[in-house]
């Protein structure tokens, strides 16, 4: 319309002159007619001509006037149209700004945890816009902000619920693992029971890993905390402990470093997930190779499997999962067959500065490399490995009797020492029978049995002596009791033997076990 209007405006200057032409032509024709006709007809013809000329002049004048009016009108329309067009463009731009800038920014700020009121206040509009239009936009923004806030709240509470449940499972699993470890020590001599305990222990560790994964995806830390540095070897074997097929993992060279306490658990968990992927997606008869070598920026842990490998596309997708999950992943978009592993690894890697990459392996499978930054590494903690060999020499006097070094053994270990003692008596029994009896002879000898037998049983002694009487009758213990009573009678110590007389029975009942 603008285009059609513009040419008509171009004709405009010519038009008033054009309208003079018809009256002029009519006047000329009239003059010619008057000259041409006979004398007698000249007057009527002249009249007619004059009237016609006047009429044409009139019409031409009117036409020209209307033409001018139309032109003015058209110009006004064009102006109006341009104004509307500008307004529309502004509003269009504003709507685009709402869609492309304001809303995403508002959502992002809400997700960062800013309050809805703050976000709304800061979303300012230009003043010259139509107030109605601005109000409508504000309303849109408010609706969206409200919806986002509601959704965020829902997600938060869902995540908190997930984390909470995971924490409870973790607590139970942790307790269970501790109990199992104690049981493993207690039943360490029976290979059948021990094997079954190991089996249950393994299953428990798998449950623990799943709970850890859920906690991590819910934005929490994985379960345990280590207050002391953990050696890399322990970290790797800790990761192996938590996967199903740990027996397929070959542990190769391991750098002599340790991981600081706070980073140990996330690292163990991330490595466990990578190892799980490696063992899960490779044939059961193949091995998975695990090694940790020092590199310039820290330590690189490599996990290589002999599986099918990943196509370039699959690899890109996996790495995308790794990077995207570090930006934050929803529990809701995990889908029905959740592949938690890489998402968890990505999360932990982002939080603790591990770099993870997946590459084709020399074994045709996948080679996952995780680079652990130097700032979470430290030197190997001495306590666990060094002091024990250091304390070794003292108990050396082993040669003839295995019973002799035992007092030395009690210092470093209490629980296994008890386990050991329960087994030992078979050999020592006869010695023990002779000695306590002799002790009774003189009170001065009493400290000695305390020196030999007490370290093992000294803490639970009161409980033992309480249990013993009930266990006494029917036990093949009588000889000792009889002898003790007999000798107590000989020595004439009536009240004192009551204590010692009971203790030998304790010893023997203990040994009888």
């Amino acid at each position, binding site marked *: 319309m603008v285009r059609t209007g513009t040419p008509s405006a171009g004709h405009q200057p010519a038009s008033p002159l054009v309208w003079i032409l018809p009256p002029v032509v009519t006047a000329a024709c009239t003059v010619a007619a008057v000259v041409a006709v006979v004398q007698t007809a000249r007057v009527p013809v002249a009249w007619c001509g004059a009237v016609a000329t006047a009429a044409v002049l009139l019409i031409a004048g009117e036409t020209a006037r209307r033409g001018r009016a139309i032109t003015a009108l058209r110009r006004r329309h064009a102006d109006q149209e341009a104004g509307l067009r500008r307004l529309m463009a502004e509003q269009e731009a504003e709507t685009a700004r709402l869609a492309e800038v304001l809303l995403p920014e508002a959502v992002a700020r809400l997700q960062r945890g800013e309050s809805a009121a703050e976000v709304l206040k800061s979303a300012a509009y230009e003043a010259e816009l139509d107030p109605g239009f601005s109000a409508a936009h504000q309303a849109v923004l408010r609706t969206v902000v409200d919806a986002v806030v509601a959704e965020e709240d829902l997600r938060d509470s869902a995540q908190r619920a997930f984390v909470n449940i995971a924490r409870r499972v973790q607590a139970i699993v942790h307790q269970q*693992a501790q109990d199992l470890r104690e049981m493993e020590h207690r039943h360490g001599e029976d290979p059948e029971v021990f094997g079954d305990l190991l089996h249950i222990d393994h299953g428990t560790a798998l449950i623990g890993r799943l709970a850890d994964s859920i906690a991590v995806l819910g934005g929490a830390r994985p379960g345990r905390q280590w207050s002391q540095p953990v050696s890399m070897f322990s970290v790797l074997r800790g990761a192996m402990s938590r996967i199903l097929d740990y*027996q397929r993992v070959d542990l190769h060279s391991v750098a002599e470093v340790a991981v600081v306490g706070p980073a140990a658990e996330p690292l163990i968990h991330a490595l466990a997930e990578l190892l799980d992927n490696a063992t899960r997606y490779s044939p059961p008869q193949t091995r998975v190779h695990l090694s940790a070598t020092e590199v310039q920026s820290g330590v690189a842990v490599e996990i290589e499997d002999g599986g099918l490998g990943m196509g370039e596309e699959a690899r890109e997708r996996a790495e995308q999962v790794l990077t995207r999950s570090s930006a934050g992943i929803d529990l809701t978009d995990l889908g029905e067959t959740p592949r938690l592993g890489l998402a968890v690894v990505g999360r932990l890697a982002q939080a603790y500065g591990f770099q993870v990459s997946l590459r084709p392996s020399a074994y045709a499978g996948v080679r996952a490399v995780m680079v652990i930054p130097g700032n979470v590494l430290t030197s190997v903690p001495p306590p666990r490995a060094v002091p024990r060999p250091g304390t070794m020499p003292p108990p050396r006097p082993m040669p*003839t009797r295995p019973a002799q070094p035992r007092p030395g053994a009690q210092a470093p270990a209490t629980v296994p020492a008890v386990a050991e003692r329960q087994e030992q008596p078979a050999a020592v029994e*006869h010695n023990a029978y002779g000695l306590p009896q002799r002790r009774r002879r003189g009170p001065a000898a009493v400290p000695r049995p305390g020196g030999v037998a007490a370290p093992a049983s000294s803490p639970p002694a009161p409980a033992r002596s309480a249990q013993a009487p009930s266990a006494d009758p029917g036990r093949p213990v009588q000889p000792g009791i009889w002898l003790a009573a007999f000798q107590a009678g000989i020595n004439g110590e009536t009240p004192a033997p009551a204590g010692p007389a009971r203790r030998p029975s304790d010893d023997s009942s203990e040994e009888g076990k």
Partner: protein
Amino acid sequence: MSGAGEETTDDGPERMYVITGGRSKAGGQDRLDLVTLVVARSQPEPGMPPEHTAIVRMCHYPLSVAEISAYLELPVSAVKVLLADLLAGGRVEARAPVPAASLPDIELLEAVMHGLQKL
């Protein structure tokens, strides 16, 4: 347990089954007993697991299986599995637990006991 009541640092993160490779009994090593004496036949090497290194190091002088178990704070079955590996690799040697020592002892003690009772 060794951490003296600190529940966060009771043990390492590795579980027992990883240390023993999932085995609970030493295959073909029935002669390992609680009182079998173990002596190292080689020096520890860098690539060995810490438990193997510790056993080889502590068995520089003969130690019984029970003692190794106590020092390592590992159950006897687990120690037997580790020892079986070391024995198979020829890194340690197992010796019968001096059987001659026990028998005369019993007789002697019985003799002493009877003698005392006759007093």
